[in-house]
């Protein structure tokens, strides 16, 4: 009986540890944190999220973000729309999490 209980507890502990060790899910690109979201195709959104997650340096992240903003501003201009800045910034979020140095 003790062995059986140990098996259950071990299983629960493994699962709990796996979950606890990974505090917080991955960052996700979304309308509220991505400038020009409405001008991006699904493929571009996926690629943008992937690029943003792959940075390890804050400078590289900000450089890419500036490049992305310029590209989106150009698309907005062609559509006759003015882009509003976003309250959230992916690079700032990553730096706050300690992902970017």
């Amino acid at each position, binding site marked *: 009986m003790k062995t059986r209980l140990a*098996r*259950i507890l071990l*299983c629960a502990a493994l*699962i*709990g540890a796996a979950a606890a060790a990974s505090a*917080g899910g*991955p960052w996700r690109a979304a309308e509220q944190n991505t400038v020009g979201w409405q001008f991006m195709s*699904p493929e571009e959104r996926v690629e943008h999220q*992937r690029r943003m997650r792959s940075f390890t340096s804050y400078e590289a992240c900000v450089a890419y973000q500036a490049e992305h903003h310029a590209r989106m501003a150009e698309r907005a201009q062609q559509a006759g729309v003015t882009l509003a800045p976003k309250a959230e910034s992916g690079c700032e979020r990553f730096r706050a999490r300690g992902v970017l140095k």
Partner: protein
Amino acid sequence: MSGPYVTPWRDPPVAAALVVGLPLALVWWAVPEGLPWWRSIAIVSAWGGMGLLLASLVLMVREPRVARFLGGLETAYRWHHRSGVAAYLLLLVHPLALAADAWAESPARAWQALAPWAQSWPVWLGWAALVLLMIGLAATFALNLSYRRWRGLHLVLAAGVPIGLAHVVVLLGSTGSGLALVALALLALGARFVVSDLGVAARPYRVTAVARRAAGVIEASLAPCAAALAVAPGQFVLAAFGEGPHYRGCGEYHPFTVSGVDRDAQLRVAVKALGPCSQRLQDLESGVLVRLQGPFGRFLGARRAEPALWIAGGIGITPFMAALRAGPLDADTTLIYLHREAAGAPFADELAALAAGDPRFELISCATGDRAPDFDALLAQADRLAERMIHVCGPPAMVDALAPRLRARGVAPGAVHFERFDFR
């Protein structure tokens, strides 16, 4: 032969806990905040599906200690299948939910979200994995598929897992979480292929004798070449028969129930011609090398010194033969032995001799022909049914037919033990 006193109990649901717990843990970690509903569904289904897929991989590790931990190989396989199917369904929801999310913008966006050619290679990996899972799963539901073909298609399914994980890791970017999932998957896949399929941990045995027990049924005696497996009556081993002087085996592992555990560590296994490999084994000869893994299962492991009823159908007689050969019974035992033809039933003569020599052993042998047996009449021959421990071994249809009849006669569910030996 008497086993230790074991109160019948249900397994702690370790396998079920894994199948429920692992996806829930991943979903809990990845659950999104502030995203549109359909995109949240897409994310939850992806991580839930991935958790189920990983649980399914862990459950296919065919190692005796791992199998015992999970509640037995049969239980592990059952949950492996369930979690694999559930994983596929959840992972199928993932792209559909992404398309539904894009539909809110426009139908064109929804189509772009679904069409693989509108995507880049990280997404192609996801589609490739899904297609491979679909092909592999279709094989598991095909009833009349040969073992070889089934196994090949199952390998396709297995190939879909690392590809799907590559899709996850690439999209996650440089994160340890994705790599931890990959490590777990590769560990489980590696353990299955290297330890189980290649038989790195298998013990070498040699065939010392082959006896024909009936038409299409042989019994092979196996002597250990090195350390022997500690096998108890009612257990089964995975055996890969290899080369002999004039015999070439299939070289792949198949489950065989042990029909005898002899004093000199020799084992006996009965082989009925059911497929190409077991058909070839009918020509087995002495001297052939065989590699064994196990033991697995604990059928007959929960016996105690109280009246018992054993019900065997066809080759399902095998575990009871091992128990009877292990020594005199210490409780009144009735064996109902169902077989197609009276002439040539495996072990019929030996069983008759055992029944004649042991007053505690009663044999009820019944030739059914091609008709379904009259279970009610057979059960009526066993008195004090509700006081007996009952073990049933036979084809799934026989087990399914007996279960309600035993319940109707007042037999408690905990007093009935059976294992289906119909998994691949």
